[in-house]
């Protein structure tokens, strides 16, 4: 009876130690996945639980290293340790399925080793395997100089503790693998190129984008492949070292690799203890940004060219006019004055256009709406272009739908839009006719049906969708037509000049950009339909709301 009570008490005590060890393990595992550290915790707490002379472990470490550590609770001689170690090596070799060589072992002992006059040998001992994710990674050994010390009970206790620790680490490792997987797939799918190196300049991660940007075809890239690709552009290795050394983000603003322009960021990476782990290199493709920048520069230099040429001419001609020689040649004199007048006028047009564009871009473009009879606006435009059309042997006609009431628009600005459409059509049409049309398109009504019902033909017409009742103004020609790939560029400020410079026709090309701005200031849309060799239609659609009565009862638009 007494004996069983004593057993129960001992049992309880052991349970408590077991629990306290497990609690400490739990805490440790929370921030460490290092198996060695965890085993260290276990063996550090065993003294209260078991009687032993030595406790040691043999662990399979990274890169083929094997760690042997042994804590001597009482002094033993060298042979004792060798015996224990050899026993463990044999057992772990069997467990791991491959032979562990003695020269691979990294050995450390804490405690006192005596000489061989101490004849104590390992009389009792047992091994507990360390298993992580079903893989044996090491062995724990308890040995004593006393005989017959360890029975199933002792082994079970240690086995339980070890098992708990293994399970916890395995779970954590799984979570970590999962998180790493998530992180990896994120890095893989990033639009930017990413690579990471450790402090020894080994490539840990490189995503497909980085390989693509650097032109590395093989999937098992090394840091040398990366350095090679960048060799003539930048010294990445030095940059990485500099970044880690100074703990600083480094940026290479513009590196041209193959047909891409890359912005390269090099950032040091540290662990929670502020220890350098390596560096992350980010490759950001800025090819598009650079192209836009170039377009902007080209635009500026084109503008400068367009302004400077006539100005230089005007100055030279004016200088010539100062001389008596020219004054005496009446014909030349007249010609020169004429040149000055026309060139300064075109310069002024350009400056006005540029100011309009600048205002549009700054959002300061103002329109003055008033009740406008759109038929009058069209008639005025037809009148002003009739002689130019005649000179070019083109018919200039208009078709205005009956019953369009007054609409609230900026009549001058809408007149300017029509001016641009009509003058463009005349420029690019060799023969045939130019038709100016105006009609109301009801919400939900198909543009193609409406166009047909008005007896109009618009080559290349596709049905756009509008959200309201719209007043449609259009200029259709029988000209050259515009290839599909050029259509979208027509209303773009930067791509315009290139086109106009290459063509024989003079002009800044800003007209359509300004038209777009004017129409958008009205809340409307501009567009173009075209078919090569059949002709083009430039149109604008201005939303009209029937209930919005004109605010100011002003006379209809007449310039």
């Amino acid at each position, binding site marked *: 009876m007494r004996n069983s009570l004593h057993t129960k008490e001992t049992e309880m005590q052991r349970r408590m130690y077991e629990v306290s060890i497990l609690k400490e393990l739990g805490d440790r595992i929370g921030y460490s996945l290092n198996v060695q550290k965890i085993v260290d915790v276990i063996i550090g707490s065993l003294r209260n639980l078991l009687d032993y002379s030595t406790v040691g472990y043999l662990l399979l470490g990274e890169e083929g290293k094997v760690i042997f550590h042994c804590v001597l609770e009482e002094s033993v001689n060298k042979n004792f340790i060798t015996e224990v170690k050899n026993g463990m090596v044999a057992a772990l070799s069997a467990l791991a399925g491959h032979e562990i060589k003695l020269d691979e072992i990294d050995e450390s002992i804490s405690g006192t080793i005596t000489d061989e006059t101490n004849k104590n040998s390992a009389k009792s001992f047992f091994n507990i395997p360390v298993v992580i994710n079903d893989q044996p990674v090491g062995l724990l050994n308890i040995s004593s100089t006393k005989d017959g010390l360890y029975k199933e009970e002792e082994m079970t206790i240690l086995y339980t503790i070890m098992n708990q620790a293994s399970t916890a680490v395995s779970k954590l490792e799984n979570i970590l693998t999962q998180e790493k997987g998530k992180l990896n797939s994120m890095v893989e799918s990033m639009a930017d190129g990413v690579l990471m190196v450790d402090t020894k300049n080994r490539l840990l991660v490189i995503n497909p984008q980085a390989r693509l940007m650097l032109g590395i075809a093989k999937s098992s890239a090394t840091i040398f492949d990366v350095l090679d690709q960048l060799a003539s552009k930048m010294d990445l290795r030095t940059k990485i070292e500099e970044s880690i050394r100074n703990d600083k983000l480094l940026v290479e603003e513009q590196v041209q690799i193959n047909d891409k322009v890359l912005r390269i960021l090099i950032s040091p990476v540290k662990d929670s203890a502020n220890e350098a782990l390596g560096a992350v290199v980010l490759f950001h493709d800025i090819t598009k940004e650079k192209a836009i920048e170039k377009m902007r520069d080209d635009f500026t*230099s*084109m503008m*400068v*060219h367009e302004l*400077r*040429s*006539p*100005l*230089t*001419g*005007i100055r*030279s*001609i004016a200088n*010539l006019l100062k*001389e008596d*020689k*020219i004054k005496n040649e009446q014909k*030349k004199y007249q*010609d*020169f004055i004429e*040149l*000055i007048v026309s*060139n300064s006028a075109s310069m002024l047009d350009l400056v006005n256009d540029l100011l309009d564009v600048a205002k549009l871009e700054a959002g300061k473009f103002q329109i003055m709406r008033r009740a406008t009879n759109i038929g009058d606006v069209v008639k005025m435009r037809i009148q002003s272009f009739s002689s130019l059309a005649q000179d070019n042997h083109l018919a200039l006609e208009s078709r205005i739908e009956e019953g369009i009431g007054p609409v609230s628009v900026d009549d001058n600005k809408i007149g300017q839009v029509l001016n641009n459409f009509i003058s463009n059509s005349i420029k690019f049409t060799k023969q045939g006719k130019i038709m100016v049309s105006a009609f109301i398109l009801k919400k939900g009504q198909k543009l193609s049906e409406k166009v047909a019902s008005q007896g109009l033909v618009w080559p290349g017409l596709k049905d756009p969708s509008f959200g309201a009742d719209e007043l449609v103004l259009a200029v259709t020609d029988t000209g050259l037509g515009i290839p599909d790939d050029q259509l979208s560029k027509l209303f773009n400020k930067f791509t315009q000049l290139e086109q106009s*410079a*290459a*063509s*024989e026709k003079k002009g800044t090309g800003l007209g359509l950009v300004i038209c777009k701005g004017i129409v958008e200031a009205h809340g409307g849309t501009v567009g173009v339909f075209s078919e090569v060799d059949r002709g083009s239609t430039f149109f604008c659609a201005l939303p009209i709301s029937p209930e919005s009565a004109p605010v100011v009862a002003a006379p209809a638009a007449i310039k």
Partner: protein
Amino acid sequence: MEDKKTRILVVEDEEILLTALSEELKQEGFEVVGAKDGVEGVEKAASEKPDLILLDLVMPRLDGIGALKQIKDSPASKDIPVVILTNLSDYDKVSDALSLGAMDYLVKANYRLEELVSKIKTVLERKQFGTLATPTVPPQA
């Protein structure tokens, strides 16, 4: 050189510049032929046999670089010295032109007449040096 006027072909699409340059050069005693784009320039380089060509770079139909290539490819015009007329903004095209055999260039926006004339004379002298096997007497203009 005294008995025959030096003939200069000016290829320039900007009408006012073409007129101004032509008039200025005429007043300096040169004979001037004008061409209003690259295509016309190439034709006149061969047909008019000028002593020197002033060639604009940015032109419709055929630009200066294209025209220069054709001028240098044609046996009728390949030996005529070419001076490029340029704007400050297309310097990279100037270096293209120089590598294609243009002898010099002139920035249009801020040229002075004296500079233009002295450049023309220098180029013509260099051309004479180049064609003489052993120039013993420096050519006097």
